[in-house]
């Protein structure tokens, strides 16, 4: 499995407890939007980000948090934080 595929799998596991739209979750793609597609509320999006920090051993700053709207943006931010570590 490629790094990206593995990372997407990890991300899917992280968002699972917070999603309200099962169909969008099962069809998770790079352009899946956390709020509009998965129906995660803004409070639970904070928990998603905190779980991402723990899983990948990175720290997400406020600017990155604001950009973390869909799967692709999340993967990009995780990769850049890992690279900067």
């Amino acid at each position: 499995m490629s790094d990206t595929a593995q990372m997407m799998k990890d991300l899917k596991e992280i968002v699972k407890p917070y999603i309200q739209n099962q169909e969008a979750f099962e069809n998770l793609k790079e352009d899946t939007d956390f709020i509009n597609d998965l129906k995660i509320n803004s409070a639970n999006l904070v928990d998603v980000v905190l779980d991402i920090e723990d899983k990948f051993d990175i720290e997400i700053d406020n600017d990155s948090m604001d950009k973390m709207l869909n799967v692709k943006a999340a993967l990009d931010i995780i990769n850049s934080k890992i690279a900067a570590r």
Partner: protein
Amino acid sequence: MTSQEIISKLPYQYPFLFVDEITSVDENAVSGSYRYEASLPFYAGHFKNNPITPGVILTETMAQIGLVALGIYIASTKQIALAEVKIALTSSAMDFFKPVYPGEKVTVNSQKEYFRFNKLKCKVEMFNEQEELVCRGTIAGMMNI
């Protein structure tokens, strides 16, 4: 910040203010108390001829002391204009152990789990005057700061 200063910043008033006193507060924890006067209007309906404090009111009391009062204190330490502070309840998970009757005084202790990206999440416990556990749970809210 004194107890009175924090209470004056709370965005509630009678009959929906459930904080009499903040007894201790720092960036990680808050304690406070409230006495449910028998004249509070909801006792007329909960229950018919059998007044008991509703669980939602106990939860609200825990949120006002454990989350909102703590949030106001945290905002003050970050030099945030307190008139601007607004907070919305986003989740609560509560277990109840003892009923609270009209006239009883309760004490609430709250411990911060985290405050990140404007979300404040706390573990909160409520005790009665016999120091028995009334309810315990987790409450979270988003602040617009």
